[in-house]
């Protein structure tokens, strides 16, 4: 991977983030939707403070898994066929395209996690334990979802099923991330070791990253 590769990665990521700045899908739609979901749950199941504190962290991670993937999949990251053709004619390495799109999704997902996390802490009165591990979990989950979501979006790309299919495909594959994140938080609460869960999430990230990079060119040429 030459310096040209990383230059392309930066260019792609920059373009995606610029698109988000113009459209504002994440800021104006996905984040509010995630926050609203957090608001609706206690209306349905009860507002006992103790109950909410118990389920708060779990609810938060479920929302991140289900809604966060929309960030990676959003209209902003989809390109029309002529645009893709132009990219490949210009010599854009498909792997660089994948990494670049993943990078922009990662940044947007982190913003999503932080914004919705603030709402969760407020509504459910969640204790913020082990801030260092928490930050690490947020980053690893965001990375995993970004990798999974971007890869799945490329796979689904040319079919007419559209964006609704991608969350369905990503959700079961993101279970290790969900379990890792929730068990890590529980571990922090009850004093268990959480290294194994963090390693599990890291393994997910590595596996998906490898597959994403290796299949980028075959996918584009299909």
């Amino acid at each position: 991977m030459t310096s040209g590769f990383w230059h392309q990665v930066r260019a792609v990521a920059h373009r995606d983030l610029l698109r988000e700045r113009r459209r504002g899908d994440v800021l104006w739609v996905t984040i509010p939707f995630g926050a609203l979901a957090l608001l609706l749950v206690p209306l349905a199941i009860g507002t006992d403070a103790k109950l909410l504190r118990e389920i708060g962290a779990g609810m938060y991670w479920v929302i991140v898994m289900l809604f966060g993937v929309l960030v990676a999949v959003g209209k902003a990251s989809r390109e029309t066929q002529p645009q893709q053709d132009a990219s490949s004619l210009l010599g854009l390495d498909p792997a660089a395209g994948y990494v670049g799109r993943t990078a922009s999704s990662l940044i947007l997902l982190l913003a999503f996690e932080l914004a919705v996390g603030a709402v969760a802490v407020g509504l459910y009165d969640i204790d913020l334990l082990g801030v260092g591990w928490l930050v690490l979990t947020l980053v690893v989950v965001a990375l995993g979802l970004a990798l999974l979501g971007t890869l799945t979006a490329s796979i689904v790309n040319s079919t007419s099923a559209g964006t609704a299919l991608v969350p369905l495909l990503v959700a079961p594959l993101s279970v290790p991330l969900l379990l890792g994140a929730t068990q890590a938080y529980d571990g922090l609460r009850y004093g268990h070791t959480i290294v194994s869960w963090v390693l599990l999430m890291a393994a997910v990230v590595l596996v998906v990253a490898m597959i994403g990079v290796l299949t980028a060119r075959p996918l584009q040429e299909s």
Partner: protein
Amino acid sequence: MKVQTRVRTWPWVAIAFSLVVALALSLVSPRDDVQGELVRIMYLHVPAAWLAYVAFFITFLGSVAYLLTKHLRWDRLAAASAEIGVFFTGLTLVLGMIWGKSTWGIPWTWDARLTLTAIMFFVYLGYLALRRTTDDQVLRASRAAVLGVLGAVQIPLVHFSVVWWRTLHQPPSILRPDGPAIQDPLMMVTLVTGVVAFTVIYASLMVKRIELLHLEEQLAEIERSTERPVAGEAVVVPELGRNP
């Protein structure tokens, strides 16, 4: 050529003056017997909540007026008020959480009024998100107006449902998220001054926000009259096997 939209500075002066007066009174007013100094948070929270409801009511009126008259000035009124309303609703919620955490140890109490305010926040956030999706001025105005009316008309139903839900599930504690009954006259004066000050701030912000809308329209008008093809439009899929 000069900018056509008039730029006024008195709103900023009015805002600065109101902020200073409100702040001074809040700091000078006496402490509460029950809540101590924390009652001063009320002097921000209550006027902000008042503004939130006023702003959304104006959005409703503006939306109705637009649907009846089709004059864009009503759409501008509705849009500006919705944005200011979203800001002050958000502020109300955040201040409410700070007050809740400091007074009761819990940021959110799920009482009817707080929950309703949160729901309203999302309704009008959606209104603003909708406006962002349409570039055409007239189309955007009519879509937003319908949503503005729908949202506002739904609010009483939402309010009723939430209040009913709350009365069935009253928390068995002494939580009184409404805040203390204000008995001290100086505290009442502070609160009322806060409400008046915030209303002045709302009106001033409306003037500037509508001005901003005018400027945006003016620029769009200029850009429309000097339109050039976008460079990227030159990239199309080549069609093979057809006569050029």
